[in-house]
């Protein structure tokens, strides 16, 4: 059984590494390789401790009993008239699994980053931020208090801001970082309102001796909350999750976030940041259940719409990282469908497998960039000859993503689909069916874009890489870069191969239907004490057929070079424009809402009003006062004119007010 001090080390080792690297930077220099070692050592130790922590939670019905600590108190919270901030380490199976995923994936990414960032002048800044990022996420998943969770939630947002904007000299990176922070903060506004609304329920909690912000207290009390109260609380938290996990309508920041270094993307998309939203809903699940259909249907619908919409945008993207970004959004949508279906264990299972294959795909994309020096798939092709290991890794990732039997993605996606089909949550069956078919359609698209990506990148003839990119399309920092076709070094390949193994095996071994290799059946769901997903043969067959269809179509179009007949092509053209313009949502948000309505509308009007009317009135009063003052000043020769004027005016106003009131 892990002790509390050791458990806290999981969070604070990476944060200490961040502090150490940041403080040593002025002395060791920006490029010091030792900073990478420090980060790897800290995260590696956290990984080892995380496995211990997970083992400690297995077989226990209850969370490991670490008490909470009082941090500060305002007023008299015991009587329901005040606020007590507590902090604590909540270690239950959900946390245990997240700890292992976060530290494990992060460790591999750090190892890989050593080669990827080699020679960057800000090498040590990179590892400092990565350690902070990892530590913040670990703090988030271990928080025992909802406000404590919110604190780390925001720190995760901060770290991603710093990492997306890592190359701050590039305007696109600075833009993307800002966008990520602000868009997610819109969601966090909902989270904040939920915290406030929860505090307003304080007296009811206090009557039972509970603290509304203590997660175990909140979950125990959730069934006693009025349904509408629980639903509003759940929806507030869900708004935060929608922002963090890039769900419609707040998904627009994630595709832009690829402006950060590629290993950062792999971490954001796999284990940290976007996983936080799914985790939050799973963590607060009793609240969602208490919120009933209003809460769960919303979650499922948003998830379904996002899964479909994001997958459709991935169909036409040419940037390999953009394809993967849409893919992440879509797969997160699947997780929310599972949550909405009342199956948090299934959602976590998909998060678990997705972490491996998505991280793998991003690292493969980084490896490809290492050779072709571009992310634009139109200038790739044929890379499987030069980089066979990367090809094999990416292929495994794509198969797993497409949900091909028997890879990891198949098992978890199938449980999601089966859950959506069963629709146990739905107040109205229509929602369940709609969500199920959206997921099926999204699955077909997933298989298609995954293999379109594989074919465009690795098959056919090489189309020239960065050397072939027209000068007008190049970024300033891409000047002077040249193609260097070669397989990546082992420091990069090794993490990829480990992830590839997980992308193959983590599904069946993770939640097998029967006991295998000493791992009990439905180990994952049983560990989480939640209902296991049912395997539904019909759904499995349907999803396999759909996946095969998607792969087949991609093969026809990108290997055989078959194109649609002209009338179909013409009919699809407007659809393609819609998808390439991302449903015009960026135009709507940035062009219309922010620039026109806010910046050139409301803000302009407020500024004008303030200068012309409010300040104008003050200047007018002063002008009147000055001229009165001149007259008064004739009477006296004192120098403190201003005092005189003001005193006179003040007295006049006072007398006037007095007279009026009398």
């Amino acid at each position, binding site marked *: 059984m892990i002790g509390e001090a050791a458990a806290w080390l999981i969070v604070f080792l990476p944060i200490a590494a961040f502090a150490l690297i940041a403080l040593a930077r002025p002395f060791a220099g920006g490029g010091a390789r030792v900073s990478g070692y420090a980060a790897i050592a800290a995260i590696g130790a956290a990984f080892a401790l995380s496995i211990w922590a997970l083992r400690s939670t297995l077989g226990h019905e209850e969370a490991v009993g670490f008490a909470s600590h009082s941090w500060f108190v305002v007023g008299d919270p015991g009587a329901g008239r005040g606020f007590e901030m507590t902090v604590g380490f909540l270690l239950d199976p959900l946390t245990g699994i997240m700890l292992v995923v976060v530290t494990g994936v992060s460790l591999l990414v750090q190892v890989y980053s050593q080669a990827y960032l080699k020679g960057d002048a800000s090498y040590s800044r990179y590892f400092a931020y990565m350690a902070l990022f990892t530590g913040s996420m670990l703090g988030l998943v271990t928080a025992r208090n909802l406000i404590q969770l919110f*604190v780390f939630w925001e720190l995760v947002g901060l770290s991603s801001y710093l990492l997306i904007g890592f190359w701050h000299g590039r305007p696109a990176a600075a833009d993307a970082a800002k966008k990520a922070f602000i868009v997610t*903060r819109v969601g966090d*506004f909902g989270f904040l309102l939920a915290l406030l609304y929860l505090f307003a329920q304080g007296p009811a909690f206090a009557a039972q001796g509970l603290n509304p912000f203590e997660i175990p207290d909140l979950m125990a009390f959730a069934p006693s909350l009025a349904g509408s109260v629980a639903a509003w609380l759940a929806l507030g938290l869900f708004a935060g999750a929608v922002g963090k996990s890039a769900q419609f309508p707040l998904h627009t920041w994630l595709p832009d976030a690829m402006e950060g270094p590629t290993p950062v993307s792999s971490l954001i998309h796999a284990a940290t940041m976007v996983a936080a939203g799914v985790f939050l809903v799973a963590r607060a699940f009793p609240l969602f259940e208490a919120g009933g259909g209003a809460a769960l249907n919303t979650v499922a619908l948003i998830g379904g719409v996002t899964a479909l919409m994001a997958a459709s945008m991935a169909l036409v993207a040419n940037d390999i990282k953009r394809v993967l970004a849409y893919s992440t959004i879509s797969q997160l949508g699947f997780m929310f469908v599972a949550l909405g279906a009342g199956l948090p264990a299934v959602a976590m299972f998909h998060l678990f497998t997705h972490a491996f294959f998505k991280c793998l795909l991003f690292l493969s994309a980084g490896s490809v960039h290492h050779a072709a020096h571009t992310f634009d798939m139109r200038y790739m092709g044929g890379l499987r000859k030069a980089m066979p290991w990367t090809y094999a890794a990416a292929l495994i990732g794509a198969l797993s993503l497409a949900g091909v039997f028997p890879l990891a993605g198949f098992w978890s996606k199938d449980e999601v689909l089966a859950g959506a089909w069963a629709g146990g949550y739905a107040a109205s069956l229509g929602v369940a069916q709609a969500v199920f078919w959206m997921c099926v359609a999204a699955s077909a698209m997933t298989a298609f874009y995954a293999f379109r990506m594989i074919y465009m990148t690795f098959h056919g003839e090489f189309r020239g890489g960065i050397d072939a990119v027209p000068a007008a399309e190049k970024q300033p920092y891409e000047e002077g870069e040249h193609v260097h076709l070669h397989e990546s070094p082992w420091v990069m390949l090794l993490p990829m191969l480990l992830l590839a193994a997980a992308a193959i095996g983590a599904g069946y071994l993770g939640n097998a239907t029967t006991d295998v290799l000493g791992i009990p059946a439905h180990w994952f769901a049983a560990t989480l004490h939640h209902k296991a997903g049912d395997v539904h043969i019909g759904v499995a067959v349907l999803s396999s057929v759909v996946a095969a269809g998607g792969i087949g179509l991609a093969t026809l179009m990108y290997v055989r070079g078959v194109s649609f007949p002209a009338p179909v092509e013409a009919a699809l053209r407007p659809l393609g424009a819609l998808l390439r313009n991302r449903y015009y949502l960026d135009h709507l948000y940035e062009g219309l809402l922010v620039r026109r309505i806010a910046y050139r509308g409301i803000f*302009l009007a407020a500024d004008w009003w*303030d200068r012309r009317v409010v300040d104008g009135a003050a200047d007018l009063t002063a002008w009147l006062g000055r001229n009165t003052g001149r007259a008064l000043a004739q009477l006296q020769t004192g120098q403190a004119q*201003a005092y005189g004027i003001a005193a006179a005016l003040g007295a006049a106003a006072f007398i006037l007010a007095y007279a009026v009131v009398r």
Partner: protein
Amino acid sequence: MLSVVVFLPAAGALLVALAARSAGAARLIALAAVLAELGLTIALFAMFDRGAEGYQFVERAEWVPALGMQYLLGMDGVSAPLVLLNGILGVAAVLVSWRVETRARAYFAWLLILQTAVMGVFLSLDLVLFFIFWEVELAPMYFLISIWGTGRREYSAMKFLIYTFLGSAFMFAAIIALYLSFPGAERTFDMTVLAERDLTGLLLPAGLVFSGFLVAFAVKLPIFPLHTWLPDAHTDAPTAVSVMLAGVLLKMGGYGLIRINAGLFPDELRAAAPLLAALAVVNVLYGAFIVMRQSDLKRLVAYSSVSHMGFVVLGLSSLGATGASLTGVGLSGAAMQLFTHGVITGLLFVVVGLIYERAHTRHIPDLGGLMGRMPLIGAAFVLAGLASLGLPSTGGFVAELLVFLGTFSVYPWATGLAAFGVVLAAGYILWTAQRTLFGPQRPRWDAIEDATLVDVGAMAVLLVPIFVVGLYPRLLTDVFEAGLGPITARF
């Protein structure tokens, strides 16, 4: 003890004026004075009995017995953190003035007198003494802005003076009315005595007396629509004065609202609470809207102050609660916000001043790409900005969270609207940082140097409290609890 704290900077000013032969000597003496003052305020804060309600270190002397005026100083949980804040900001102000050469003796002397005046406001418990310190602060501010300022400095200095003075006139009338309301022997200016009294049946309606104070403090804080002096004063003031102005002078308004409006007039404050909540929303949102359109860095930070001071007003309005929702959490948040905004915005002005000194412009479209040349200043800018947008682990988050928690159950809609200010703050802070610091490095900044050791000192002295309070808020919350408890208890 408290007299020493109040007058030590003034003694330093005297020494600067009489003994300093050069600018270098002047700033060294000034630095010694503010460092000694900071040491004193830290010692005072450490010696302060944190759990105890009521005033400590009280000094009382007859002054004008015939009129019942006393020399009365005392410190409680409300003023203790602000006294410390004033000590911290004094050091930052002197360090950031290190390169002032024009009439340096007069400059540092005025700066030190300003610190004494503010200290006097926070520690006076006699209304006349309070009023005198309140007025004394005007002289150094007027001269510092009009002589060492930039741009339309005389206009701005005069505007500041007239606004404050007009407000003071109302306060003065209110003080006199309060005094004359009681029969001969009971007449007093002693706030501690007045706080115990039943203030119904005054010479003037209590609401009017309350409003007299309210107007004076609303100008200072500032509350819409009495705020337009602030951006002008900030824009044209020298850096150190902006630091003091945002850091402690605005806090005099917030302090007055808590000490006098809430402390003496609970019934009137309760009646005015809905109005205050509404004004708070206007301050927060309207202020933030205007920030978005500013192209001058200093003006931008000034308007962000207007927005953030709205949170103080919002926290104060939570006293309009009845029954179980009256918790004092919102008021604690308001007091906390006074402290945290002081260090955060103080730091923002320090950084803006350092940038201006180097780039010779504050016009945002002309800036950009500075991060590569000045990583330290840039990092401080980003950290101060993050604290300003309420990032957890900084003091700004704790203060705003407490304000929101305390007020939501009283005025949910006003609180919800004001809380959206946090999203807007993220917008303008990050956008400003991007336009100023990020983007390609420009050739015109090639000669720019990063912060000197002195500059680092000025930034560090403000950065440390931002994170200490953010990570360990108990340091302040306990003290505020003891100070605000008696005030909340009367509601």
